[in-house]
């Protein structure tokens, strides 16, 4: 029995050790594949799908969009930390900032959601600090076990790509608006979703990471701008419960950070994919408008 217990222990520990080695090797390969942004790109766009669909960095030629779907501020912070280290030309960071980003419901939908974690962790595990790991360990430690198969699988592929000197997609994100317009269908879905009273409790985790992003920008002498991208009037009407708590949150906690609110920007309904994401047509119009804005016009959107 003792011999068996010892053999089993050695086997399990060895498997754990091998997985740790694989992850370490994958982290090394990922770190070597740091994102180098073209020198003419001085404005970094960060955040979730709202920013991903709005800022066309082919039109805004000095912008570089690394936003991605369902990305909480924890991942944006880890991403930003890594990018600023290797890209000193960045002087401005635009961070998506909308009502849905600041309430507690987003923690379960995005941050602590196992599916999202599975998607992100194979690439972010090498750039997250121990404080980021503590967030998951304190709030939903089981995500690590659920993500283990994906982590082992993707890490192996990353190592293979590294050995073959192939490019590794760091999964940071990029501009990605679609051609479609399904506003009517989306409206029905949104109305059903927002029929009941909404939870307007603020998310401590998300807000703490906005502050961390702000502190990082101060440290790196980079300007941070919070940005509320265009939404349809229908969307604002349906989510009216969230508007006041959202603006109060900004006023109480982030008034030291510039906030540009273009939620009411005149984009026709055909320029939207759904009620709160622009499509390609809308992104082109919006990005062109942004490009041609004068500093005075830009300032008029500033929330005081």
């Amino acid at each position: 029995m003792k011999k068996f217990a010892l053999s089993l222990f050695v086997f399990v520990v060895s498997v754990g050790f091998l997985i740790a080695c694989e992850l370490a090797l994958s982290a090394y390969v990922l770190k070597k594949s740091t994102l180098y942004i073209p020198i003419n790109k001085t404005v970094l766009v960060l955040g979730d799908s709202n920013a991903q669909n709005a800022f066309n960095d082919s039109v805004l030629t000095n912008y570089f969009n690394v936003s991605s779907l369902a990305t909480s501020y924890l991942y944006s912070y880890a991403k930003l930390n890594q990018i600023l280290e290797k890209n000193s030309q960045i002087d401005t960071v635009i961070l998506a900032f909308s009502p849905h980003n600041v309430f507690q419901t987003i923690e379960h939908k995005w941050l602590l959601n196992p599916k999202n974690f599975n998607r992100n962790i194979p690439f972010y595990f090498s750039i997250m600090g121990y404080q980021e790991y503590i967030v998951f360990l304190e709030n939903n430690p089981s995500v690590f076990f659920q993500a283990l198969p994906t982590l082992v699988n993707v890490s192996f592929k990353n190592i293979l790509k590294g050995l073959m000197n192939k490019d590794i997609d760091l999964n940071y994100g990029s501009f990605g608006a679609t051609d479609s317009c399904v506003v009517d269908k989306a409206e029905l879905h949104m109305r059903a979703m927002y029929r009941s009273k909404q939870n307007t409790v603020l998310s401590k985790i998300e807000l703490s990471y906005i502050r961390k992003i702000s502190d990082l920008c101060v440290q790196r002498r980079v300007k941070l701008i919070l940005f509320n991208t265009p939404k349809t009037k229908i969307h604002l009407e349906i989510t009216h419960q969230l508007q006041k708590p959202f603006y109060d949150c900004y006023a109480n906690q982030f008034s030291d950070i510039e906030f540009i609110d273009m939620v009411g920007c005149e984009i026709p309904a055909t320029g939207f994919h759904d009620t709160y994401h622009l499509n390609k047509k809308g992104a082109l119009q919006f990005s062109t408008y942004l490009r041609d804005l004068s500093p005075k016009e830009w300032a008029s959107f500033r929330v005081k």
Partner: protein
Amino acid sequence: MVQNKNLKFQNLLLLVASYFFYACWDYRFLFLLIFSTLLDFYSGIKINESNSPRNRKIWFWTSILINLGFLGLFKYFNFFAESFVEAFSAFGVEISPWTLNVILPIGISFYTFHGLSYIIDIYKGRIDAERNFIDYAVFVCFFPLLVAGPIERATHLLPQIKQKRAFEHHKIIDGLRQILWGLFKKVVIADGCAEYANMIFNHSDQYSGSTLFLGAVLFSLQIYGDFSGYSDIALGTARLFGIELLRNFAFPYFSRDISEFWRRWHISLTTWFRDYLYIPLGGSRGGRWAKVRNTFVIFLVSGFWHGANWTFIVWGLINAIYFLPLLLTDNNRIHLNSVAAGSNFPSLKELFQMGGTFLLSVFAWIFFRSEDLAHAFEFFRNMFVISFFKMPVVFPTTIILLCLFFLLVEWLGREKQYALAYLEDHLKMPYRWSFYFIITLIIIANMGGNQAFIYFQF
């Protein structure tokens, strides 16, 4: 691990664990399992104790009919009701079908057959009735075999349950090794192939002939990996408790003809039908045509056992047709040893024989997998077209490489109980352990597929 050598306690613990295991799926059908167990336990004692042949027969048929009644009700009622309606509508008579909205209790086909074999063996005087309910109940619902077999015999399993069991290092290691290989078969091979097989079968009108053929091959590997993988996990788990279950698979895809295939595939079921159906029907006695009739009956019943769908019956019929030439030419028992025994490579003849047998089984599996007969015929129609000779449009390289690796290991271990047992005799410990580490990491990397075991539905 139970250190306590008290046998009663061991068996009681196994029984409680098995019932808990079953209840985790649906506690309501636990009562059906317990009822079936009590019925057969009591009937067995009554058959054993009765001096009157009439009473013995009454108890025998009561147990058989009630057990088969439950099986028929849960598994086949809707099939017969709908087939009845379809038959009448073919003559222009419309009847409204009265179907039951019932869930199929998991493992009912397996534990019913355990009970049936026990009752039949008592009736035939092969064994005495078990007087200890705990021991008997463990025989029926021992959790490793409860949901998908192997279908055990009282003569094989009951004596082991009644014997004291103690911790044996080599058995534990062997059990864990078999579980590891079973997990590899299920998680890596079966679930990996399932993703593509499902995609191809579910959209069979959209793919080329060669892609459909690849889909059929992948399904063949899926069902083997799934079912034999489960059996390996069950056998390995049982060994951890000091119990040896009946072997269920003996590398069937290395068979040289269909009769050998059926001696190697789902062995516990085929031998059950041989002993409790084929032989009572007369078996190979009574002339050539009686043999043919009995063989067809076995294959059709075997197909029907798998499920209430004409596709399973046709699958059984096709296998009977495959078997027929061998039966009529008395060549159904020529390949009794392992292929290429004592050699690393098969001869060219053996290679062709294995390839041909595998192809025949692939074509039969198409019926097994299809939703209905129309789907199966459409699959064949779409497969045998000019695009059969072109490259498949879907070519999952990683899965195919893993399958080739899997087949290589199975080939090397074909003369053992299970493939990985080969390593014990042929590799030194560091290399063996390295292999185990690689297999374990591949299993971990492929987990999360969430494909249910195919045979759980039977």
